[in-house]
């Protein structure tokens, strides 16, 4: 594919005709990592859902994998926030990762050896091969996030959207997730990662997009993650600390 994996021109998205997020301009290409940064309620999840075709585009031009978002539904990989999952559900880690293969297998046909191999490899890549038989809900928050990442890997997406993948994740799992995400983009996948962790955005992303009700800035981390632009986005609750690092403070 030569065109962008994701392209938004002056897009507004929202529910029932009311815009939640406006003025979004994005251009994400194969191998790029885009971080969506903003406070809670900024519209990060809504933007991701619009790419998945689950929230309508109200204005502007949106193209996902070369098609309209609603037509591209089911094509992009998606890692939801772990707290939206049913942790009591009797489903094994292996079954969760196999869900990533459903689109290839079909909803009805039995899994083949290639699918089982892909599942085993994906679990191996996130370092959880030994947990395949465990129930998903028995794992820690970081491990659950890595299982969902393995599910996304198993689906071999060209565009992968991750909603707050570092929420409630310990340092070991965070490093593991960052490593795997770098590998995925090196393999040609385009990644969109929502986070409110400025440090992760700075370290991981090629492009950072600042959001809060609208898009306030987009560009390289060094250009966008500045005190001035962050203050603009967060409404003044940002202070400079040593070594050019930013810190958000509650009002």
């Amino acid at each position, binding site marked *: 594919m030569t065109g962008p994996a994701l392209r938004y021109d002056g897009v507004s998205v929202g529910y029932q005709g009311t815009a939640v997020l406006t003025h979004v301009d994005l251009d994400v290409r194969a191998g790029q990592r885009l971080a969506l940064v903003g406070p809670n309620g900024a519209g990060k999840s809504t933007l991701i859902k619009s790419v*998945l075709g*689950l929230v309508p585009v109200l204005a502007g031009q949106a193209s996902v994998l070369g098609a309209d978002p609603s037509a591209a*539904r*089911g094509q*992009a990989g*998606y890692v*939801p926030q772990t707290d*939206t*999952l*049913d942790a*009591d*559900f*009797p*489903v*094994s880690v292996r*079954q*969760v990762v196999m*869900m990533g293969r*459903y*689109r290839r297998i079909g*909803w*009805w046909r039995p899994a083949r050896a290639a699918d089982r191999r892909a599942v085993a490899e994906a679990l191996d890549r996130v*370092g959880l091969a030994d947990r395949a038989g465990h*129930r*998903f809900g028995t794992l*820690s928050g*970081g*491990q659950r996030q890595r299982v*969902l990442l393995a599910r996304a890997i198993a689906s071999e997406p060209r565009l992968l959207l991750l909603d707050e993948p570092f929420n409630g994740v*310990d340092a*070991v*799992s965070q490093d593991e997730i960052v490593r795997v995400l770098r590998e995925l983009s090196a393999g040609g996948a385009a990644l969109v990662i929502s986070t409110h962790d400025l440090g992760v955005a700075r370290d991981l992303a090629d492009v950072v997009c600042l959001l809060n009700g609208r898009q306030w800035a987009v560009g390289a981390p060094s250009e966008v993650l500045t005190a001035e632009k962050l203050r603009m986005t967060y409404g003044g609750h940002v202070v400079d600390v040593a070594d050019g690092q930013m810190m958000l403070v509650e009002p």
Partner: protein
Amino acid sequence: MSWWDDALHRAVAEVVLAGALAGLIGVHVVVRRLSFFTMALTHATFPGIVLASIIGVNIMLGGVVAGGIVAVGVVALTRRRGQDASAATGVLLSAGFALGAALVATQSGFSRDLSSFLVGSILTVGTQDLVVTAVVLVVVAVGLTVGARPLLQIGFDRSGAQAAGLAIGRWDLLLLLTIQVVVVTMVPAVGTILAVSLIVAPAAAARLWSDRLPVVTALSIVFAVGSGLVGLWISSRWNVAAGASISLTATAVLAASWLPARLRTAVVRLPVAPAGRA
């Protein structure tokens, strides 16, 4: 005289079929936390059946239509933001029952039939009931097998299932209507009100014994069929109402499963191992 001419033999066949059906759908009811909804369905089915019997149409049809209205209503309410589905379900539950009672009061000499709708009358099950239960069992078993993956993904991860392209609203409705058909099918065996115990208790008990869905399903069917047979035996041995003894047996299975499960969890939790938790 053929084997089927004996009322007790027909009752045995009916509890085996209805038990398998209840155990099968019960797993979905329990893992999707639809027990309360199923309770509401059983109560809403009651006025439908009463009305059907008053106007002289097939009572199963009446039950399916009444329950179908509730199922559609609950799906519509849960799709509305900010609506508390459990409040609406609770209101529908008692309103349905009240409507059924009101309808019964308009008829004289109706109370004997009334109790058979509420708690079943398995010893009067006819060949037609058996055929209907068998057909519904086959259709539901095939449907749940074919829909296993979508149902698994929607139950575990709704937003992921939606992103994967599944029409979750339609699947929800299909599942709720399937539960409704099962409830109505079980009316001759255990009645509308007691159906919920044979659907929920064996599956809830099975869930305590395993984390693996195929094992839970198999155990749920075994517990439900077993409760039906044991309940029927108790009923004929001590001359108590069959629907009641079947329900109480299913409840006893759940109670008996709960204690070992609690003990097992307590034992597993004793040696707390911080190592390996990443």
